[in-house]
């Protein structure tokens, strides 16, 4: 089993009529990895996830999950997957605990084992005190945690999370990240999609950046930043932006390795932020604000596609 990828894809394509959602991608995800798809809405992340989850048939290409063929072994593969979908599909008329027990039974577990796992998982996602309550009054973060508990009920070899924290408030996101990090530490293989770079940086060992149905870059968050960006970024704002943006961008040329004018600010990619600040002052430019920060995956994405991730 060692060395065999959990997910193996070659030339994977998904078309819906005329529209090509996934335009031929290759993937290898190893056991124990936390693997991410980063990209804006419509990049093809969810379509890829649905093919990996064996609920959507690839239009072309080869896809093997857990060493089995995704098209022919759907039920056997799904028996060993845990899926946390983008849209909540918990049963609102069942209690929190019944949601888990009912779902465990879909995997063929005995009643006693289903109950045992439900209680254990409610503990894990910190919902034990809500076990007998309805799902409807739970907050968005609690519902998502319950969905993740549900995805773990069959002790899956591979957990798929489609935008796990979209729509959650910051506190709920951090709580969820912390739980997912625990799963990762236990050696669970995680595959997630996100359009949040901080999420990808926090959780993923390795990720692919998708745009227009293709993979445009691949690597660890660190290596992607090193390859496609610089150590630091200086965000400079001037009075009179955006009209004056191009002029100021010209004036900043040479301060760093690259200059990117955005509507509201100019990004300067540099290795040493403080040195760049000194240079800006030396040139007598008078910005209304300056911010030096570490480079993020957002910068990688901007560089690769010329667009920002979240519009």
């Amino acid at each position, binding site marked *: *089993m060692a060395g065999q990828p959990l997910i193996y894809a070659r030339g994977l394509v998904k078309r*819906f009529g005329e529209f090509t959602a996934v335009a031929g991608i290759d993937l290898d995800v190893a056991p124990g990895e936390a693997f991410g798809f980063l990209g804006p809405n419509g990049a093809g992340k969810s379509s890829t996830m*649905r093919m990996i*989850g064996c*609920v*959507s*048939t690839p239009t072309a290409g080869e896809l093997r999950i857990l060493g089995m063929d995704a098209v022919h072994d759907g*039920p*056997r593969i*799904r*028996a*060993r*997957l845990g*899926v946390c*979908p983008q*849209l*909540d*599909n*918990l*049963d*609102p*008329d*069942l209690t929190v605990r*019944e949601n888990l027990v*009912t*779902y465990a*039974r*879909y*995997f*063929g*577990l*005995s009643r006693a*084992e289903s109950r045992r796992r439900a209680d254990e998982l409610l503990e894990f996602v910190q919902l034990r005190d809500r076990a007998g309550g309805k799902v409807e009054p739970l907050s968005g973060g609690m519902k998502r945690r319950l969905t993740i508990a549900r995805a773990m009920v*069959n*002790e899956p*070899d591979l957990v798929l999370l489609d935008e796990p924290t979209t729509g959650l408030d910051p506190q709920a996101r951090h709580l969820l990240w912390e739980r997912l990090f625990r799963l990762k530490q236990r050696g669970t293989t995680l595959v997630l999609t996100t359009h949040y770079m901080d999420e990808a940086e926090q959780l993923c060992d390795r990720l692919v950046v998708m745009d227009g149905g293709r993979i445009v870059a691949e690597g660890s968050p660190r290596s992607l930043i090193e390859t496609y960006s610089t150590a630091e970024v200086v965000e400079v704002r001037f009075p009179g932006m955006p009209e004056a943006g191009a002029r100021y961008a010209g004036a900043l040329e040479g301060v760093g390795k690259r200059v990117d004018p955005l509507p509201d600010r100019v990004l300067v990619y540099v290795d040493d932020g403080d040195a760049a600040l000194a240079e800006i002052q030396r040139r007598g430019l008078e910005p209304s604000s300056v911010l030096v920060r570490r480079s993020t995956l957002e910068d990688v994405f901007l560089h690769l596609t010329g667009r920002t991730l979240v519009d």
Partner: protein
Amino acid sequence: MALRTETAAARVVHPTVAVLERHLTLYRRLWQASVFSSFVLPVLFLLSIGIGVGGYVGRVQGVDYLSWIVPGVLASTAFQIAVGESTYSVLGDFKWVRAYHAMRATPVEPVDMVRGHLLYLVFRVTIAVVAFLVVVVFFGGLHSPWALVTPLVCALLTVSVAAPVTAFAATIDHDSYFSLLFRLVVLPASLFSGVFFPVEQLTAVLRPLAYASPMWHAVELCRAATLGRAPAWPVPVHAGYLLVWAVAGLFLAVRAFRRKLED
């Protein structure tokens, strides 16, 4: 990897049964709401039409009107539950609850979803029908021990009606189509399938509609059973016709589920 072998070995329940269980778990929470429509209403119906109207009608085909109408109300109860529980709840489990999408991510297949749903309806109908029969005994509405097979007939009717309606509910995107179903199919089927009066009363033009309706065949079989006489057509023809609807409906429903859940 040890975990997986354990999981595989622990597989003790069929996915169809697991789906049935989900419906039963939900029903345990909501059953009170169904008592009136599935049980009290048919009894009220029997009292008002069977005894009230029956007092004016006198005898129909050689028996008192109450005894004549009992099998009709019986089949009609099964019909109402079968149709009623295969419309909004099926659409809702695709559109609002997305319960079928949740099942799709597990080893549960569309055929399990459909079978689990239909088994649940058979359970619901059987309870309602048996309860109704018990009440009817006290009114002297049953004339033959063959009445014991009526729950079987009602179960068959349930599948032959619920399966195609489930297929319909899994095909449409909007619940407004249900009002068409209720007005153009369910209501005429309830009125012209020999529940309240013999189909021989219908003009020759309308009579084929009764023959086409699975409901009429179930009513005929139930009436033959509770009155202890032969049905209009041979029993295998009535039962076979219901079976054709059930099998065709099952096929269409599974296909509709598969299409809805693909992509």
